[in-house]
């Protein structure tokens, strides 16, 4: 269970990396497309434009609103069994940050400054997921020799 905890926590950190990569991929592609004469308005946004990078918006939305929350819930459930010191607390913090991140992402559509916080919170979430994973890895490595000794 400790390894499951570790894998899920690191997975969240990796998915946050995907999120930031997807977003810059999309925005860069959008910029190039506009430079080349593409015109953006709501009707274009809603029609799933086909420029290189447009896929990034879709990946960001699906990954952020479905996949990461699901993994964060799974991490919390696993934390109950994993016996990682502070593991439940860490997993709860990660899930809380995920919920906050989704909310900031949505409200960013109403207020660009909230979008800025979304960017900041992404790094906080990344760090929290990494920290949780490392704590589990540490507990795992400490537990491993003891298990070996009893055999």
């Amino acid at each position: 269970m400790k390894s499951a905890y570790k894998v899920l926590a690191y997975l969240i950190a990796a998915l946050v990396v995907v999120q930031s990569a997807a977003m810059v991929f999309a925005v860069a592609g959008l910029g190039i497309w506009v430079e080349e004469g593409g015109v953006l308005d709501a009707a274009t946004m809603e029609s799933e434009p086909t420029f290189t990078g447009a896929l990034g918006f879709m990946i960001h939305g699906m990954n952020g609103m479905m996949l990461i929350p699901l993994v964060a819930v799974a991490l919390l459930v696993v934390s109950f069994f994993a016996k990682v010191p502070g593991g439940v607390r860490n997993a709860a913090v990660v899930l809380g940050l995920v919920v906050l991140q989704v909310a900031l992402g949505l409200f960013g559509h109403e207020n660009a400054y909230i979008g800025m916080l979304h960017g900041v919170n992404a790094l906080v979430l990344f760090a929290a997921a990494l920290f949780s994973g490392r704590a589990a890895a540490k507990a795992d490595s400490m537990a491993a020799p003891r298990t070996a000794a009893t055999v």
Partner: protein
Amino acid sequence: MSRSRLRLLLACLAALAIVIPLAWMWQASLVPATYSVMDMGTLDYGGGPEPAAGAMDHGSSGDMGDMGDMGDMDMAGMEHGATTSVADLVTKADGPPDVAVDLVAAQGEVTLASGRKVPGYTLNGTSPGPQIDARQGDLVEVTVRNESVTDGMTLHWHGVDVPNADDGVAGVTQDAVAVGEEHTYRFVAEQAGTYWYHSHQVSHEQVIGGLFGALVVHPARGSRNAADSDTVEAMAVAHTYSGTRTLNGEEGDVPFVAEPGQRVRVRVVNTDNGPTQVWAGGPYVVRAVDGYDLVEPTPVTDRSVTLTGGARLDIEVAVPDDGSAVRLHVGGATALVLGPEGSVAPEVTQPTEKLDLLSYGSPADLPFDVSDPDRTFDYDIGRRPGFLDGRPGLWWTVNGKMFPDVPMYVVREGDVVVMRIHNGTSEDHPMHLHGHHAVVLSRDGVAATGSPWWVDSLAVDPDETYEIAFVADNPGLWMDHCHNLPHAKEGLVAHLMYEGVDTPYRVGGALENQPE
């Protein structure tokens, strides 16, 4: 009990405390493979009278949360008699049609005017499909054959208040037309104006894929409007094919040849999901919105006008006298360039101000009294996380509840209905009511002071509240949904139901009816 066992027990309980509510929510959100929209949602009488027991074929008295039992409920409903089937709500006009059109729907590639091919759908080999022209009062008969649209297809007459049986909504007013089959639509074009038609089967894919065309109902000969013969007409059907903006299928500047000094009425149709802005290089007049002429509209300068998804605007512009052309922009990427052959029009940037139709034109009497409506409904749009048919995500809500637990607005023929539409989300929603035109009464508590503003597709921006009114004069079962069609797919869809009307059609099932 040992300490480790207690710990394991606590862990199990904590895990179940998280998993069980999630699993329950997931299970409760599952929509059965086939269901009748009659059984959907919570009946909302809007403060009007409720029908006697048995007169309505709604599955239960309310909550459709446990959709798993729906099949049984519908069987129970079928025992009630005394209902009119939507299939029988057809036009009373008989005899040969004045306008007869045969269409063939196909799936494959759309060839844009530039020669570029994109995956999509065509009608008679083209997209947009053939324009259908009729005169006011004409009986229109359109037969569509599905050659190769694998999901099946239908045709919905967007903005035309057709009889319910001809509304073209798969699973609600008909079954989707499968490959090799055909379907005939018949209706009288009663209201002159600009309309369009499109598939209402898997509409979030088929419409953006190109399964649509324009429909123009010209004023009857000898009518006051028809006498205005010194104005010529042009079309500007806006559509985005795989990210490419087009007007009438063409990209960029689309020329329209007209004499110097000529006045041109441009019928602009937004077939896209999102709103766009329309503006001109000179003064323009908004003659009509959603097929209804405005009263005494005045020339507009330095302002753009919003054209929301599914909506239409008839815009009159004058070609300059000096031999140059005038530009009518529909979004930044495309423009109709109206002028003599070979003439050029100066570039014109998008105005920062927008025209407010709430105070545009002159007021006039409404054909019905809105001071004491028979029913008042709320259509409050929200958004929250949850499961939609088992899929986790952020989904739209109507009056706080997620699809399929959305309101079923119940009316009786002849009712004056007021509907308050509030958008509590961060995205705009082009709200489209089938089968009726509603007049805008107010926005955010500010009463309309301009020309009566009739709509079938109304842009409701974030945090806005519109109050609209209509007369329930077209019995049937009508969709009332967001015309940003992916939003409808994400649950932003409700229905307006007349007392005593029932539908034999079902969403899902072997015919795979999927209206959204």
